[in-house]
């Protein structure tokens, strides 16, 4: 079904929810101001389900403070409406000037995991070709980078779920490490109904409440827990030796480190009873169909990639990956968190998951782009390092932000805000005045989900069509139109930056042809005909259309020898553990009614009613210990900064831990207390562990 109306019937468009990576299929009807949504009954991922965010998504199309004209900060320091030509000329002029004075890397780009494949692709190309800068990364670095690093090393390829979501329906046991889909992607639970869940989470989340077994490790100790589970898999005799011999390498080295993690030691470090660890392994190892899935809780650490690797090791030892009916996967977060990490907006990557460091990859993409491969810049700074360098010595002087709100979502937010303020030029393309847009010198109003065509790649690696139900309001342009207009002003051929999504998609098919994430066989026509296409989907050489790859690794893993790799990883403490001054673990995360930085969901009245402000969840014992009461405003402070939050007493959080959701602005930003420690491999910040203290607001010691 496409966006065209049918005579005699209300016009309807089948598209997907604007939020998370589950990408529930929805049907939109009605005109601007009165758009209605309903879940598609026949889409296998959501099967007629939708959470409150999805049901209320049409409200975002009608927010009262929608950006409808470019804004330019005047000499008086106030953002004032401006014409498109004025704004674009100004931006292009300043970019040229800064580039001439400081070099191409003086201009940086920050993208987002919510951008369509077409936009992510065009943004990466714009940075490398029109700006010639190496300084591009995106907020997906804060989401998927640890899982991507670990699974690429293990399997040779990173696709969040290397199997369709519906495969989970038949699972007997599923281990969820640091994932809370009951709140972050509720309709996924429809696929977990028959399985016994083993949930690893310091909080007793709604997902944990549905679990057969809940393991509650202290924040930052998931790696020790995973090592302990592998240790037990060996001593309980649950290792699939035949599989390990035939399909993997590196088991012996992996065992050598986890040998030191006998269950009683793991218990001491994690606080999880040894008996529960044994039960978990027996459940997993005894199941006919078992899955191990990770989420941000395991990944957003300075040892996140090693933690994922340790869970992959467990899955490999049990013989799960690459077998139909079992496997390892990671639950991608943002709407296009999968496609967004394959399309070349990541600091070290080119489209198709190609590498900027690989000469053959550079040559292929340069040829598609019609440029000299030698002219392509090399890898640039990772997201936090990029933000940290802004406006400093040798750092970028200008930043262009698309589809992101780092003032709220980046770690060590007060510092990042200062860096953004230190820029000579901040340009933000958004459809609402986000907290980051409020700091900008130029704000460019762009189209949003139901106003644009494109594709996204969901958590299962399936390429999905987003369809325009409305035309953008007058004064609003699409991101592709913005990039085109700027590229032309920067001296690029008009034809090099097409504005039609379908054209961009056709180009990215060529750019990804033969690459790991090969989209060359996917087309709008095939998608619109209802085909379920999972990458890799190469163009059929002999005329026959490739069916796509719903399940990866069934015959071989993507390394040259076809074998998966065990990783030799060891536990280590978090960057900053609680001490006398900051005696608690502070951990950050999500609530059901808000999405990411909240720029969209905080504008939806029903969602604000459900989750209006920053809360700090703490155990009643903890509140008593620190002189706090339910409903009081507390300051949650770390060595990096402090957040103001309303105390919510709950027994679902460990007494040594407080939890703060990160969706809220201003003094309630949870990221005011998160720090700048990064995973050495993935450059993922440590969102999940800070050492904090809690005090009544205004009574800091």
């Amino acid at each position, binding site marked *: 079904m496409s966006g065209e109306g049918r005579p005699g019937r209300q016009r309807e468009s089948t598209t997907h929810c604007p939020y998370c990576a589950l990408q529930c299929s929805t049907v939109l009807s009605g005109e601007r101001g009165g758009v209605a949504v309903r879940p598609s009954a026949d889409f296998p991922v959501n099967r007629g389900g939708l*959470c409150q965010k999805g049901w209320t998504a049409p409200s975002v199309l009608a927010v009262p403070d929608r950006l409808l004209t470019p804004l330019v900060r005047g000499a008086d320091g106030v953002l004032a409406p401006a014409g498109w030509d004025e704004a674009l000329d100004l931006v292009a002029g300043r970019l040229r000037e800064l580039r001439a004075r400081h070099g191409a890397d003086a201009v940086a780009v920050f993208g987002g995991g919510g951008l369509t494949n077409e936009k992510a692709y065009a943004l990466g190309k714009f940075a490398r070709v029109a700006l010639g800068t190496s300084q591009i990364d995106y907020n997906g670095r804060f989401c998927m980078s640890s899982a991507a690093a670990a699974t690429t090393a293990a399997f040779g390829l990173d696709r969040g779920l290397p199997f369709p979501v519906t495969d989970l329906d038949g699972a007997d046991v599923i281990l969820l490490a640091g994932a809370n*889909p*009951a709140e972050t992607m509720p309709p996924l639970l429809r696929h977990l109904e028959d399985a016994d869940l083993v949930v690893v989470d310091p909080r007793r989340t709604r997902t944990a409440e549905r679990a057969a077994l809940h393991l509650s490790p202290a924040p930052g100790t998931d790696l020790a827990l995973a090592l302990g589970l592998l240790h037990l898999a060996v001593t309980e005799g649950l290792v699939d030796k035949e599989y390990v011999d035939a399909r993997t390498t590196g088991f012996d080295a992996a065992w*050598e480190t986890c040998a030191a993690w*006998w269950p*009683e030691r793991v218990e001491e470090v994690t606080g999880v009873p040894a008996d529960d660890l044994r039960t978990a392994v027996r459940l997993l190892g005894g199941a006919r169909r078992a899955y191990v899935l990770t989420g941000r809780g395991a990944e957003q650490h300075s040892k996140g990639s090693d933690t994922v690797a340790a869970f992959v090791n467990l899955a490999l030892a049990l013989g799960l990956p690459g077998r139909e009916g079992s496997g390892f996967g990671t639950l991608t977060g943002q709407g296009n968190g999968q496609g967004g990490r394959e399309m070349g907006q990541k600091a070290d990557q080119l489209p198709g998951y190609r590498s900027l460091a690989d000469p053959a990859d550079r040559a292929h993409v340069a040829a598609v782009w019609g440029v000299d491969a030698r002219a392509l810049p090399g890898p640039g700074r990772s997201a936090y390092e990029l933000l940290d360098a802004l406006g400093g010595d040798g750092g970028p002087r200008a930043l262009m932000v698309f589809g992101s709100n780092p003032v709220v979502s980046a770690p060590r937010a007060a510092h990042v805000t200062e860096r953004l303020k230190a820029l000579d030029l901040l340009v933000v393309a958004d459809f609402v005045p986000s907290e980051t847009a409020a700091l900008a010198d130029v704000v460019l109003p762009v189209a949003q989900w139901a106003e644009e065509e494109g594709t996204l790649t969901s958590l299962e690696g399936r390429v999905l069509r987003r369809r325009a139900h409305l035309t953008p309001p007058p004064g609003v342009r699409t991101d592709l139109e913005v990039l085109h207009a700027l590229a032309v002003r920067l001296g690029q051929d008009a034809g090099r930056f097409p504005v039609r999504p379908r054209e961009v998609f056709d180009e990215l098919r060529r750019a990804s042809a033969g690459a790991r994430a090969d989209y060359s066989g996917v087309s709008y026509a095939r998608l619109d005909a209802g085909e379920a296409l999972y990458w890799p989907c190469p163009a059929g050489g002999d005329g026959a259309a490739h069916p796509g790859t719903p399940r990866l690794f069934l015959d071989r893993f993507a390394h040259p020898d076809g074998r998966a790799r065990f990783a030799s990883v060891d536990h280590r403490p978090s960057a900053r553990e609680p001490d006398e001054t900051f005696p608690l673990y502070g951990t950050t995360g999500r609530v059901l009614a808000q999405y990411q930085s909240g720029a969209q969901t905080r504008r939806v009245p029903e969602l604000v009613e459900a989750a209006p402000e920053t809360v700090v969840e703490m155990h009643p014992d903890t509140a008593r210990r620190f002189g706090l009461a339910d409903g009081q405003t507390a300051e949650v402070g770390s060595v990096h900064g402090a957040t103001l939050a309303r105390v919510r007493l709950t027994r679902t959080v460990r007494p040594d831990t407080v939890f703060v959701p990160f969706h809220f602005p201003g003094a309630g930003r949870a990221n005011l207390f998160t720090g700048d420690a990064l995973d050495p491999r993935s450059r993922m910040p440590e969102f999940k562990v800070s050492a904090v203290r809690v005090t009544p607001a205004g009574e800091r010691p």
Partner: protein
Amino acid sequence: MTGVVIVGGGPAAHRLAARLVGYGHPGGVTVVGAEPRPAYHRALLGSVLDGTLDAGRLALPALPAEVRQLTGVRVTAVDRARRTVRTGDGRALPYDVLVLATGARPRVPPVPGLETGPGRLAEGVRAVRTAADCRPLSEGPVVVLGGGIRGVETAWALSGTGQEVALVHPAGHLMERHLDAAGAAVPAAWLAGRGVTLHLGRRAAEYTPGKVVLDDGQVLAAGTVLLCTGTVAETALARASGLDVREGVVVDALLRTGDPRVHAIGDCAEHAGAVGTTVLQAWEQAEALALTLTGRQRPYAPGRRVLRPRTPGKDMVVLPPAGPARPDNTDGTDDIDGTVSLLDRAGGRHARLVLRDGRLHEGAVIGSPSAVAAVSRLYARDEPVPADLLALLTGADGAYAGDGTLPDEAVVCHCNNVTGKALKDAWHRGAHDEAALARATRATTGCGGCASVVRRLCTTLADDGDDTPAEGATP
């Protein structure tokens, strides 16, 4: 620079050598171990005994190539004046820094027949100390001598394989250094439940191959006798070279002996009057010494370490007294807050916790896996105990259970933030089944988890026969 020579091939020596390289120690690092194989996990010997781990899986990771590793080589003398150690195979190894990590040897109780000469165990007798000790047992029953932690672990591991085991222990109850009689009754019951015969308050009087005679005249058939009677720090080398030795090689906070070039770590060292370590403590010492030797002086501060016997499937933890009792100025008593005990003989659970300043001072928890885990962490991190101590000890988690009623303000459908009241209101407006309530309120349309609650609500309201409109029904 001639570098560091480490005497000993166990986990402490291994960790120190690895860390020295990791921290960029500029000189050479040599490890001299008497055992024929590189370092391995002693803590896992029980897993070999109970058949869950192959002996080949005990090895610690290979040391970095920069480390010179001598195995099967015994150090025979230390010449501190020349800063040289001599080895049994005739080498002279010069050092700038010498680290003694010689470990401990099994204590052999003075029972006639156990030894055929000094340090030479009789046929059929072995300790549980080395990988070699885990070789297959002789035919016939096993007699474990000693009912401390190691004895209990060993008897538990062997009895799990179906092996016939008798345990002989001179004290009136097991683990008497750590547990009171009531507590010790729990592991005693575990062992008895697996068919282990306990001979408490009894000593072995004589051993001859094939049998152990007890001090009351009982004769126990013994294919193998396993010595779990403690260890003695291996200090001969230190003593011979004139270093200060009490029970162990005496070291200060920087793990130095009286000779600033000679250090000692692990089971052979005596720090602050304490000798004998768990492997985790030995690793902490190795870590601290590696930092000190690479220029970041790091005094060793022993962490609070629980004793966590390895009896897979059964859980217990001992919290050693955390420092001496502090007398109170006014009445001469110490400042203990009190003691909390739980004895559930039928359920096989026991706990005794001594509190000081609202924190755990010492105690033991047996038979309750979640309480063992919780108490271990609170003790190790010196954190305040929860308000509900009984819940802590029983491992109960009060918050899961609800009483089944549905308060109006309770959210039934979290995915769509639908309260019980909203559902009842919709029902009264005519939405009388799940589908109609879903259309009216969106309840059940997210994860689907509340569908059963919504259906039950329909039944309850229908049974009540109450179809009066909710709004305006009461004045």
